[in-house]
């Protein structure tokens, strides 16, 4: 009998624990829509001095284990500190369908300043790839946070080419000989590789999959692919060890970590493909709150700690104000819509 009781207690504890862990990430979402909290927020509509008065839900439309999530773990404490008022962000990871699942959810949240989304460039593909009718225009734009770009990598002991010029020359002289490894087809880094081939006119086989940057490094070192065009990510360790060399970056200007490596644009081909992360809030969020968030993110993004973390993780801190970022997003949407149409990935 006693044992039965203990067992029942044990079961109760397990159940409570599972409830806790199951709801932990979600509880803020439900509290956001409860009538009590919405009443309290309408009481202070004219005065945001105490913002935030409760937790802010930050939707992460990608998995909780990726490098974006890790970056957010570093950035958010800095933003919380800058925002003051014991601000707390609760990160809610909702991956799926090229980030459209999380963004559709974030779009429909209350525009009271207590929900926001941390986005990546995948959202520029959502409409073009046919996931959902959703663009950045469905949100109010706060600012950008960091960016990473597509780079071109070859083996350290490659003898056929050693820079963009010789690679293009070789590729044009040997049509359909090169294998080019890249990230998952239909993702934003894939389009960097696609754009590179389009602009240079090289005929090559693009092999895209989701093995991650270091996985591609191994395909490259094995000789299964001749060139890798993707974001650097964890591949930087192979660049450091010299097994792989980076010959160009598809960024606006040279990367801080690699000042000797030219951009593809410098080499004469207009390929700029950056994946920029930023903050969106539901449309109609009060301007005063957006200003507060923007100011706090500006301090956090420009802090030395964050800048250094980004550099160590093959990215760059990249702050654009709301207006600048909105212009950037308009160009980005145009670029990706065009690339998707050219790629023929989506049946018309």
């Amino acid at each position, binding site marked *: 009998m006693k*044992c*039965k009781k*203990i*067992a029942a207690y*044990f*079961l109760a504890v*397990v*159940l409570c*624990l*599972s*409830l806790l*862990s*199951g709801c*932990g*990430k979600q509880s803020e979402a439900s509290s956001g829509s409860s009538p009590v909290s919405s009443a309290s927020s309408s009481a202070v509509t004219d005065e945001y001095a105490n913002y935030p008065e409760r937790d802010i839900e930050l939707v992460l439309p990608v998995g*909780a*284990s*990726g*490098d974006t*999530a*890790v970056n957010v*773990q*570093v950035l958010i*404490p800095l933003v919380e500190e800058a925002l003051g008022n014991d601000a707390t962000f609760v*990160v809610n*990871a*909702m*991956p*799926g*369908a090229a980030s*459209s*699942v999380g963004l559709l959810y974030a779009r429909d949240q209350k525009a009271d300043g207590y929900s926001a989304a941390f986005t990546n460039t995948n959202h520029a593909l959502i409409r073009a790839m046919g*996931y*959902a009718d959703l663009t950045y225009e469905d949100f109010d734009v706060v600012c950008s946070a960091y960016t990473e770009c597509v780079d071109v990598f070859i083996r350290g002991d490659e003898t056929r080419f050693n820079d963009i010029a010789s690679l293009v020359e070789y590729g044009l002289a040997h049509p359909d000989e090169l*294998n080019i490894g890249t990230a*998952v*087809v*239909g993702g934003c880094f894939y389009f960097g590789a696609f754009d590179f081939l389009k602009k240079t006119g090289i005929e090559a*086989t693009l*092999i*895209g*999959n989701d*093995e*991650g940057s*270091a*996985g591609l490094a*191994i*395909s490259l*070192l*094995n000789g*299964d692919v001749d060139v890798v065009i993707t974001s650097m990510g*964890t*591949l*930087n*360790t*192979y660049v*450091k*060890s010299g097994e792989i060399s980076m010959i160009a970056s598809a960024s606006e200007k040279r990367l801080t970590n690699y000042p000797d490596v030219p951009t593809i644009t410098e080499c004469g081909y207009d390929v700029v493909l950056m994946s920029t992360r930023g903050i969106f809030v539901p449309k109609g969020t009060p301007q005063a709150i957006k200003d507060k968030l923007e100011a706090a993110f500006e301090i956090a993004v420009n802090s030395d700690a964050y800048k250094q973390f980004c550099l*160590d993780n093959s990215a760059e801190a990249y702050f654009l104000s709301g207006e600048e970022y909105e212009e950037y997003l308009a160009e980005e949407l145009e670029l990706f819509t065009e690339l998707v149409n050219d790629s023929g*990935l989506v049946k018309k």
Partner: protein
Amino acid sequence: MFENILSALASNLTFETVLFCIIGVLLGIIVGAIPGLTATMAIAILIPFTYSMDMIPSLAMLLGVYNGGVYGGSIAAILMGVPGTPASSMTSLDGHPMARRGEGGRAIGIATISSFLGGIVGCVCLLILCSLLASIAQKFGFPEYFVLTVFALVVIANASGDIVTGLISAAFGVLVSIVGSDGMTGYARLTFGSVALRSGISLIPCLIGLFGVSELINQLYNLRDEPKPRQKVGKVFPGWKLISEIKGPILRSAVTGTFIGALPGTGGTVSAFTAYNYEKGRAEDPDSFGKGNPVGIAAPESANNAAVGGALIPMLALAVPGDGITAILMGAFALHGIYCGPTIFTEAPEIVNTVYIFEIFANIAMVIFGMMFARWFAKVIDIDDRILIPVILLVCMIGAFSASNHMYQIVVMLVFGIIGFMFRKTGLDNGTAILGIVLGKTSEVKFRSAMAMSRGDIGVFFRPICLVIWALVIFMLISPRIGNYLRRRKAEKKAADDRC
């Protein structure tokens, strides 16, 4: 090398780090024991907390969670028949029947000892063979991985008894796995216009459905008022005699587990399946598997814990994570400024040694906790089924939901529960279907990548490493049959001798 480890041992084993490692193991066991909550998730939740901690204690804690989580999955698998993690699916096949007949404590004891021994073998391999295994893993390109998936599917389809039902089950799993965006072109396949299905059917809800919910439906179906056999809690330690009987399978499975775990992208699930089916095919009494054979618990548990050590090899040496947990572990390391990859052995050798030490320590903590708590865990089954089943179902639902915070995951779980129940009734094999789901898409993408890479030349599947794997496929297909043949001949001979 060993002096370095000893000095790292002296500097790292402080009260604080040991405490965090123990907390990590406990947390891992609890999370692993709840179906649907995996060590991956626990680490994701812990990362913000470890961010403010020092590097060594947080590393100790994360490794504790990893090891504890992989082991904890077996507790739910044994007691409820619902595998807590994908890697413990096979453990439920023999663990649960054993628990139903009143030997839950013993089953957990066997799982604990096997996990411990497997984990230690994995650690030793990590310690000694790290660079060797990493250099092998580095040679695996698209064709090698494709042949490897063929190997895994053939092994399990073959061992699930009837090869026809095995293949049907595997094909079902593969069909499920290709729902969603085409891995090579991004086209939506079999989604019927649903946005939710564009990212495919997640493994966790499928697993909970096929194994867990179907088991619950099965129990409801057979629900009688007769009292269940009461749990014999006296014998948690399986006894030296049994351990010496199952040490062969444990060691073989540990080696299999380490090796398969070291190949990025396969991990604990595949190693547990392979180990289980290899032992089943090899056993003199394959029919006793699935009915509570101790080897059926020992083999997969040893393999999946050995795979932990294995999976750390490509993570540390190549910056390529072996499974979902190591992927997130790498992110956690990056938060603390530790960057995995070929440079780690020269730039941060002390980190590598710390990983070795806490791997071993976490395994020791795991075996102590497991043996301490097994009898209490086992009491759970004594609860009346009419109370237990709804509670477990609720836990399953929460687990499925928290896999990605979507309600539709619960629907997926229930649908697969019904499918799984029908599988049981028709003699199809849930385990084979799960492996099909795990490997289907990988297999397809690797095959197509290999074909793209070789411009359609099929010869690419016969490169040296591929040939070795093909040889293993043939060996796995033939060896149980030869064994049976020899045994039969021996028996006939004996019968003939007896007659004389």
